[in-house]
């Protein structure tokens, strides 16, 4: 497979201070490759350099050092943007326009003409769930609706590569599900998706590969199946109708028993426990099983460990 996105030693320093500006390294020697057709997640805490990376790839920022190529072309090549979609973090668009006008404007910038423009606009607005609001001015839109417009404009040209910066930001659970489904549809049609997110469960569900950034550096990268061993770490049991006697039995066997609302308890069992046998024993005492889930390594665990171990950021004299 050919690389859809490549960066080599991509570095960005920002001057900090007025009289004697010192360089602040926002991104440090980022080298990565994203294959065509994969969904790649760039993860990291605030200030890790994720948005800086995206802006360098869209040439909204110029690198201090290093190179980046998209679809085999240097990022400075304007013609390659014909094949790209981009959703910025907390996007703002011209609020005096309606959603339909904004998307028509952008479609025309991509060179579409005639009937192709309204056809595309209608399609992407429907996909984004804004079919009914197409003639509303953007200043009347809620944050979630603006996020959907932003997503729609990123897809107006049927891009080969889509860059999404926090695509779930501001969306309600239904909106998040729609975006997840949309990303899966993009993947199904062979589109490369490069997205930055704080929401690790989304990355875990969608990405084939991830890179974790901390303090401007890439501290880990790889396929999810390689990063996470998915080892069983224990069992999480939620039970109801717990009598005093049953509670004492649970306390003996569990690592922790946490009371929940409505008389329910969350029971943290070690991996060696046999929850089926335990339930069989306890059911005789009137205990009701609400849920039982295995606890495995998650991306969140890995993320927290990796980010915590990252070296402090380099400042000055870089």
């Amino acid at each position: 497979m050919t690389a859809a996105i490549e960066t080599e030693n991509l570095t960005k320093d920002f001057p900090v201070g007025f009289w004697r500006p010192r360089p602040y390294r926002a991104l440090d020697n980022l080298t990565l490759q994203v294959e065509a057709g994969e969904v790649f997640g760039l993860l990291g805490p605030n200030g890790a350099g994720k948005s800086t990376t995206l802006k360098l790839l869209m040439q909204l920022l110029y690198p201090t050092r290093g190179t980046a190529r998209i679809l085999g072309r240097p990022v400075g090549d304007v013609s390659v943007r014909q094949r790209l979609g981009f959703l910025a973090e907390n996007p703002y668009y011209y609020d005096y326009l309606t959603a339909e006008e904004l998307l028509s404007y952008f479609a025309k910038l991509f060179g579409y003409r005639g009937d192709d423009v309204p056809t595309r606009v209608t399609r992407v607005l429907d996909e984004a769930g804004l079919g009914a609001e197409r003639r509303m001015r953007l200043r009347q839109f809620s944050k979630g609706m603006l996020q959907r417009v932003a997503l729609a404009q990123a897809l107006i040209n049927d891009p080969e590569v889509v860059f999404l910066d926090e695509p779930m930001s501001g969306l309600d659970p239904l909106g998040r599900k729609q975006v997840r489904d949309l990303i899966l549809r993009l993947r199904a049609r062979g589109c490369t998706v490069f997205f930055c997110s704080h929401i690790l469960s989304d990355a875990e569900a969608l990405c084939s590969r991830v890179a974790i950034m901390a303090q401007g550096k890439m501290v880990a990268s790889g396929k999810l199946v390689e990063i996470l061993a998915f080892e069983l770490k224990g069992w999480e049991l939620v039970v109801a109708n717990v009598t005093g006697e049953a509670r004492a039995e649970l306390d003996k066997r569990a690592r922790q028993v946490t009371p929940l609302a409505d008389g329910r308890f969350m029971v943290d069992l070690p991996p060696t426990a046999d929850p089926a046998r335990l339930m069989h024993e306890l059911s005789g005492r009137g205990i009701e099983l609400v849920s039982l889930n295995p606890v495995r390594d998650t991306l969140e665990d890995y993320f927290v460990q990796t980010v915590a171990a990252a070296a402090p950021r380099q400042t000055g004299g870089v």
Partner: protein
Amino acid sequence: MRAVFLVAGAVFKESVRDRVPYGMVMFAVLMIAASYLISQLTAGQDLKIIKDLGLAALSIFGLLIAVFIGIGLVSKEVEKKSVFGLLAKPVTRAQFILGKYLGLVLTLAVNLVVMTVAFYLVLFYMDMTMPAMVKAGWPAPAPDPRLLIAIGLIVAELALVTAVALFFSTFSSPLLSALLTLGLWVAGHFNSDLRRFENVVDVPAAAWVARGLYYVLPNLAPFNVKAEVVYGMPVSATHVGYTLLYALVYISVLLTAATAIFRRRDFK
């Protein structure tokens, strides 16, 4: 070039939906209409006052539109980050700057057409209502087509001022851009004095600096032919041609500089 026109169209659409230019145009039209009433208070100078006030209204309100929209053309896009979405499309930064500029010039031109129509309506009314004896004493007819020469040069001057505002807008805040643009507009009208600075000051270095500024700062005095037109004096085609050529060259230099600055900018 299509991208340039699309960006220009968006600027024009924004200005059409923005209430600020409407207010200014309405105010200018009212002022032109009011000039007719003011002229009634004067004896024999009525037509001159209407023409003076009308052309001044066109010039001042055009200037306000050029400066106060021009200073926000680029800086507002950068501040609100709408530039991210636009520059991620197949649009070069040069196309963005040129489109923004042409959009505002189109807005100005349309606003000035509205003001000019109002101006000529007042002049036609004056022409129709005044007795022939009074009209015989006028240096030029009321709805004088030569007023269009003055208005054309006002448009050219405003196009230049717009380029100045846009240039500052690419690297400074709106407030500073407004101050610098208005400062240059004032300096531009007194620019010819800098050329003769050595006659006033004995310090050669100061004279050199003044002469340097004379060549760098825009020279806006030639764009002002209001007095000649109001008094029915001829305005040569050569003067108009050279002034328009000067505007074209100055605007080209400013837009090239604005593009060069904007091309190097990082958008954080």
